[in-house]
């Protein structure tokens, strides 16, 4: 089975944020080894205390919580993108591995396929 790296780079109110999570859950449900990397504005999806219902949207929180249940274990967040936005892991709603630029570069080799959303 080929492994899949999903890079989610859009803020939470963007449709692509939900699509990236859906893709991760769907792939994991079919037994595909999945890595999920939050990068650029994608790290904003992880902030605690969000309420998407105020925008008439469904919350991402449930989907984020489902990652572990579906077996998506390699959840990573870009250290640079977090710092750029004044965030740290304590403000994130999900436990994720903080990865630096060099580690992200090796991810491209590690996974068979890469999708950026």
């Amino acid at each position: 089975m080929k492994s899949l790296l999903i890079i989610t780079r859009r803020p939470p109110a963007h449709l692509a944020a939900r699509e990236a999570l859906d893709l991760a859950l769907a792939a994991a449900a079919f037994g595909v080894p999945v890595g999920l990397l939050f990068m650029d504005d994608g790290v904003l999806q992880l902030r605690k205390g969000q309420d998407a219902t105020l925008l008439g949207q469904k919350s991402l929180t449930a989907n984020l919580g489902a990652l572990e249940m579906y077996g998506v274990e390699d959840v990573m967040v870009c250290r640079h993108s977090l710092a750029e936005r004044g965030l740290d892991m304590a403000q994130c709603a999900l436990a994720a591995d903080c990865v630096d630029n060099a580690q992200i570069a090796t991810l491209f080799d590690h996974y068979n396929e890469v999708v950026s959303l």
Partner: protein
Amino acid sequence: MSAPLLHILRHSPAGGSQLSSCLRVVTSRQAVLLIEDAVYALLPGSSAFGSLRLLPADIRLYVLENDLLARGLALDDLPKRVQTIGYDRMVELCAESGKVMSW
């Protein structure tokens, strides 16, 4: 050893973080292809152009000629290391690259 990764950039460097994020994680032997509004990264004197020039020499740089000329950028202004390519070569590049990362 799989074929090296191809990074494709298609957004204007001023409009988002795509270029800077790509440049943070691109590694040697990989290739970067500029298409659509990303060709503005080759505007001489722009800050994006400055950071592209700092890329290690073993990272290949390509630009889609039609997108470049359509936006009035001159071939003469390009650094030697930038290879201008057409649609055919772009397809080949994608096919021969192990993976493609579209920013």
